[in-house]
């Protein structure tokens, strides 16, 4: 068995990104020490652009899936769809982090290389149809994201967040791996398709493996009751990294979860459907209720991202009866990418340098507290408008993308007869309006603090504007992307 041209095509989007990551390291070594870091950004954009081009072409032509490396990866519609979200988040992160990482005192070469490698791991994760590949890719992306969380290593908070993330992440990997070991033990295969064939009836060992696997995935996506790490890690990580991991890691992990459930365990749908049902209900309720008392906007957004994981799980819970709800969940992930990234990026845009007493140099401080948002509308009307848009979208108010996403999701859930889950989702969305709109109230109706307003960084502003544009666009014209998500889910099991 030789590796042929088809194998390389099957991983071409990830190859482009990995190539760019290696080039970034090389170019970074060749650049003079004080030179501008713009070439690194150009190299990163080239890799991401090439990968995006490949994805768009495959999406446009509706080509049959390409299998590669002895059937362990597949380039199909689901993987292309989620890769688009992952690549978009990566491109937004690269856009905003040139000047932003300099003032956080982060070495640019390392940063871009690790971001690109994380993105490559995520893209390959949503393409994996083999337990070994899934485990390896989860680890590749996790290791990169642990490092990114702690990349501002002189900040105690960043280090603490990285350590917490590392310990919980590695702990979860252990469960995930043990689950995979039992699935392998029950079937004698690591290929998802083969496992599906051999698991016609559930043995206790297979069920144990499935349960452990779901626990591992629940940790990775931050579903209740395995969510304890999310607020701490999201709060402690540098804000652009938080923006990236809250959307891209989630998209990748959900992609893998969907694939394992649909392609690997179709006969056990009653069992995992029940578990996901419970996870979804608990995640929506706890995530939203815990967000209400938060005074820190960053922490509130962290809890809100837990809540949104619950909405996506709602779609997966309905997956056992139809693909429409799961398609809506995938579409929701896509929509969620832009609104959450935009909200976190706005926190970075409104940040300022603060001289703490006793510190040698002024430290960068993102707008995290509610009071940092007081009177923003008067100082920076456009930024306030963008933040309002993101928050309305997260709350699910038309005509934003978040409304389109929630509407499709709840409609699909009700059509499938999941009334209880849909009811919980709708009630909790109403609760969420309170804590999202509180930030808007602070921005528009409170007096600003005396602190001199600092000019925001252009690049971060560009990322915020792009995310805002896409949030509006997806809200007004959700049709194409929604249909593509449905098609992606229909074809995933084959």
């Amino acid at each position, binding site marked *: 068995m030789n590796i042929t041209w088809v194998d390389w095509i099957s991983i071409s989007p990830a190859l482009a990104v990995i190539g760019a990551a290696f080039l970034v390291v090389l170019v970074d070594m060749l650049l003079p020490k004080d030179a501008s870091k713009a070439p690194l950004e150009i190299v990163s954009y080239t890799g991401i652009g090439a990968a995006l081009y490949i994805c768009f072409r495959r999406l446009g032509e509706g080509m049959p899936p390409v299998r590669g490396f002895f059937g362990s990866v597949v380039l199909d519609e689901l993987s292309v769809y989620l890769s688009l979200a992952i690549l978009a988040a990566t491109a937004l992160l690269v856009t905003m982090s040139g000047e932003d990482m300099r003032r956080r005192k982060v070495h640019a070469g390392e940063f871009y290389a690790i971001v690109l490698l994380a993105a490559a791991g995520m893209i390959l994760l949503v393409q994996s149809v083999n337990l070994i590949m899934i485990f390896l890719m989860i680890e590749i992306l996790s290791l990169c994201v642990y490092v990114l969380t702690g990349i501002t290593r002189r900040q105690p908070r960043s280090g603490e967040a990285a350590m917490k993330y590392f310990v919980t992440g590695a702990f979860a990997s252990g469960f995930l791996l*043990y689950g995979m*070991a039992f699935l392998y033990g029950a079937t004698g295969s690591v290929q998802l398709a083969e496992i599906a064939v051999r698991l016609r009836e559930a043995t206790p060992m297979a069920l144990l493996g499935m349960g452990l696997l779901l626990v591992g995935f629940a940790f990775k996506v931050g579903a209740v009751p395995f969510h304890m790490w999310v607020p701490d890690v999201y709060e402690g990580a540098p804000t652009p990294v938080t923006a990236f991991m809250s959307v891209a890691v989630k998209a990748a992990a959900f992609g893998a979860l969907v694939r394992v459930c649909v392609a690997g365990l179709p006969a056990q749908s009653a069992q995992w459907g029940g578990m996901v049902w419970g996870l979804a209900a608990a995640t929506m309720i706890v995530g939203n209720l815990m967000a209400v008392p938060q005074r820190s906007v960053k922490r509130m957004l962290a809890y809100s991202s837990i809540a949104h994981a619950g909405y996506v799980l709602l779609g997966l819970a309905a997956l056992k009866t139809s693909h429409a709800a799961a398609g809506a969940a995938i579409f929701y992930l896509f929509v969620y990418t832009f609104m959450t990234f935009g909200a976190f990026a706005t926190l970075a845009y409104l940040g300022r340098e603060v001289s703490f007493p006793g510190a040698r140099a002024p430290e960068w401080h993102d707008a995290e507290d509610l009071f940092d948002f007081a009177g923003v509308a008067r100082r920076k009307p456009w930024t306030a408008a963008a933040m309002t848009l993101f928050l309305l979208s997260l709350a699910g108010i038309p005509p934003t993308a978040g409304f389109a996403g929630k509407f499709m999701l709840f409609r699909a859930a009700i059509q499938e007869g999941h009334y209880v889950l849909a009811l919980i989702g709708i009630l909790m969305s109403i609760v969420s309006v309170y804590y999202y709109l509180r930030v808007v109230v602070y921005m528009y109706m409170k007096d600003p603090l005396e602190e001199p307003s600092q000019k925001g960084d252009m690049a971060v502003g560009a990322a915020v504007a792009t995310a805002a544009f896409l949030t509006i666009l997806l809200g007004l014209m959700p049709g194409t992307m929604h249909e593509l998500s449905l098609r992606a889910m229909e074809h995933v099991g084959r």
Partner: protein
Amino acid sequence: MLPYLLFSAAMFSVGVYGVLARRNLLIVLMSIELMLNGVNIALVAFSRLHGGPDGQVFVLMVMAVAAAEVAVGLAILIALFRTRRTVDTGDLTSLKG
């Protein structure tokens, strides 16, 4: 078959206990290694049961991942120690709410 699985489960459980109960981060890292090694034993046993190479390949991959994981974990630990002067999980309390 069963003795291997019991051994693997015991090793995994010791690892889980270590992660949950010990407060020294170095011991937590070691416990995570123990969890992965417990899984490795199960994988090798299943590989023997089914007679294919898949499980053993899986084990080699897990070993590589475990090595990478320790490298990253220790790096984060050192960065943390430089700012905090502690490796006790009980002292990591600046993020709360």
